[in-house]
C-alpha cells in the first residue's frame, strides 16, 4: 500500500483525486492546499507518492517539489497542473518529479498516471 499526499489549492481537485485513487493500492495520508501545508504533512507522514499542483498561494508547486526531493529523493511526485508548456514539464522533471499530468484530466488518465508512477514508468 502506497501512502499518498494530495496537494492542490482546489478542494474539487483534491476530492477528484481522492475518488479516483485505487483504495487497494493507495492510502491517502494528507490533503494540502498549498506548498507550506504540503511540506508539514510530508514531514509528518513520509508519503511514498505525492500529487502536486503548481499554481498555489503561499508556496507554489515547483518550490515544494524541490523541497520534498531534498528531504527524500525517492519520493515519487506526479505534477498535476494546468500549465501546459513544455518548459514547465521539463523544469518539474529536472527537479525530481517523476511524472506530469495536465489538467483537465479524466479519472482514467489520473489512475493510469498514478499506477505507472508506482510501477516505475515515466508518465
Amino acid at each position, binding site marked *: 500500500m502506497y501512502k499518498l499526499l494530495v496537494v492542490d*489549492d*482546489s*478542494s*474539487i*481537485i483534491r*476530492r*477528484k483525486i481522492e*475518488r479516483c485513487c485505487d483504495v487497494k493500492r493507495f492510502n491517502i495520508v494528507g490533503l494540502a492546499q498549498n506548498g507550506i501545508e504540503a511540506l508539514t504533512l510530508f514531514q509528518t507522514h513520509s508519503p511514498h507518492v505525492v500529487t502536486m499542483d503548481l*499554481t*498555489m*498561494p503561499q508556496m507554489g508547486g515547483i518550490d515544494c517539489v524541490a523541497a520534498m526531493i531534498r528531504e527524500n529523493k525517492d519520493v515519487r511526485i506526479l505534477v498535476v*497542473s*494546468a*500549465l*501546459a*508548456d513544455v*518548459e*514547465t514539464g521539463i523544469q518539474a522533471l529536472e527537479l525530481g518529479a517523476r511524472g506530469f499530468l*495536465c*489538467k*483537465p*484530466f*479524466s479519472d482514467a488518465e489520473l489512475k493510469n498516471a498514478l499506477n505507472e508512477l508506482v510501477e516505475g514508468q515515466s508518465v
Partner: protein
Amino acid sequence: MSESAIKVFVDGATNYFLHSSDEDVKIGAPYLLENTSPLAFDYTGIIGVTGPQRGTVYFTAPRILLKHLLMSLGENDTSNANILDLVGEVANTISGNARAEFGHEFMISVPVMLEGPPGNIHLPESLRSYVIPIYWKAYSAAVVVCMEL
C-alpha cells in the same frame, strides 16, 4: 489579439467542458466589448497575466451552470464555497493551458473568485476585451480575455 490567440482560449474552454461532462459544449463567435461595462454572470474566476502578454483572463458563469458542472464532476456539494472553487479552477485551467501556445513566460496568478454583479470587475478602460461565449446544456457562460500583446 490575433485570431490564433483567441483560438487558444476557445480551445481551452472546449477542452475543459469535454473533459468534465458528457454533454456537448458550443462556443459562440468571439466579440469585442468595451471595458466600461465588463460582462459578468453570477460567479467569476479571474486570472491575472504578466509577462510579454499582460492582462486578465476570466471565466464567468451563472450559478445554475456551475451547479450542474459540479455535479458532472461528481460533486454533490453545490454550496457557495464549492461553486467559487469551481469557477476559479475553470479560469485557472483555461489560462494555464494557454501556456502551451504563449510559452513559459505567460505567467498566471492564482485565481481570484468573485460573486456578484459586473460592477465588481474593473478592467482598464483604455483596452477592450474579447468575449468568448460558451453554451453548455441550456446555459450561457463566457471566457473574457483582456490583454495587451
